[in-house]
């Protein structure tokens, strides 16, 4: 590979002291990832386009699961079980602009019947809340596409539920 092409690295998950306080001592339940708004995430009004927040949520959620040793794609390959998103909600409190540095926290609030993760996006410089979000996932057996009604025990326990 040419030296011109640097490998893209996702930001390392960074723990948040605030969240650890909120969540008691269970660090598995919350995780924070730092970002800088890239040019290609902006809309014509120079704000982050609303759909891009889902990508930030996804990266924070993946980091949260990784911290508990959970990789849902590997799990799909090994156990033929999918975890599709079934519901999302986002509240956009303040806009994000080009090169804003922000942190996206992901906190798991339920993993028994469905996996529910809540997100908060805050500016790094003044901690202003910019967005709040929530995603819900269920377990589905593949290729039957049969809803499993509860999250498999190994995943549930790894996530602390």
């Amino acid at each position, binding site marked *: 590979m040419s030296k011109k092409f640097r490998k893209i690295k996702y930001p390392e998950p960074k723990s948040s002291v605030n969240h650890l306080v909120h969540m008691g001592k269970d660090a598995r339940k919350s995780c924070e990832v730092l970002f800088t708004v890239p040019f290609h995430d902006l809309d014509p009004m120079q704000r982050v386009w609303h759909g891009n927040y889902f990508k930030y949520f996804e990266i924070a959620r993946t980091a949260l699961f990784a911290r508990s040793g959970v990789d849902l794609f590997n799990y799909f390959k090994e156990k033929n079980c999918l975890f599709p998103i*079934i*519901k999302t909600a986002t509240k956009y409190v303040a806009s994000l602009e080009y090169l804003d540095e922000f942190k996206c926290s992901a906190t798991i609030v339920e993993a028994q*019947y*469905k996996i529910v993760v809540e997100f908060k996006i805050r500016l790094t410089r003044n901690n202003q809340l910019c967005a709040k979000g929530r995603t819900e996932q*269920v377990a589905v057996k593949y290729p039957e596409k049969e*809803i*499993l*009604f509860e999250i498999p025990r190994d995943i549930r326990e790894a996530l602390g539920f």
Partner: protein
Amino acid sequence: MKRDEIRSRILQIFREEFEIKDPGLDEDLRELYEFDSIDAIELLREIEIMLGFKLTREDKKRAMDIRTINQILDYIDSIVAGRAEPV
């Protein structure tokens, strides 16, 4: 729990959780109110909380064909009857 009590609790769940206000007892919830399989999973969870015990996977699978409030009430009756101690 009597059927009347269960009915009013179920209607309360529909009102609060699914924003479906007083559906007819034999109305098709999927056709008229777009009640879907995702809603069904959440309803089953509420039924578990109401009954105070977990439903088996077979019971839950059986519930996926339900279409009306009356069918939900019959379903809960059958689950409770199945759990009753034989004399």
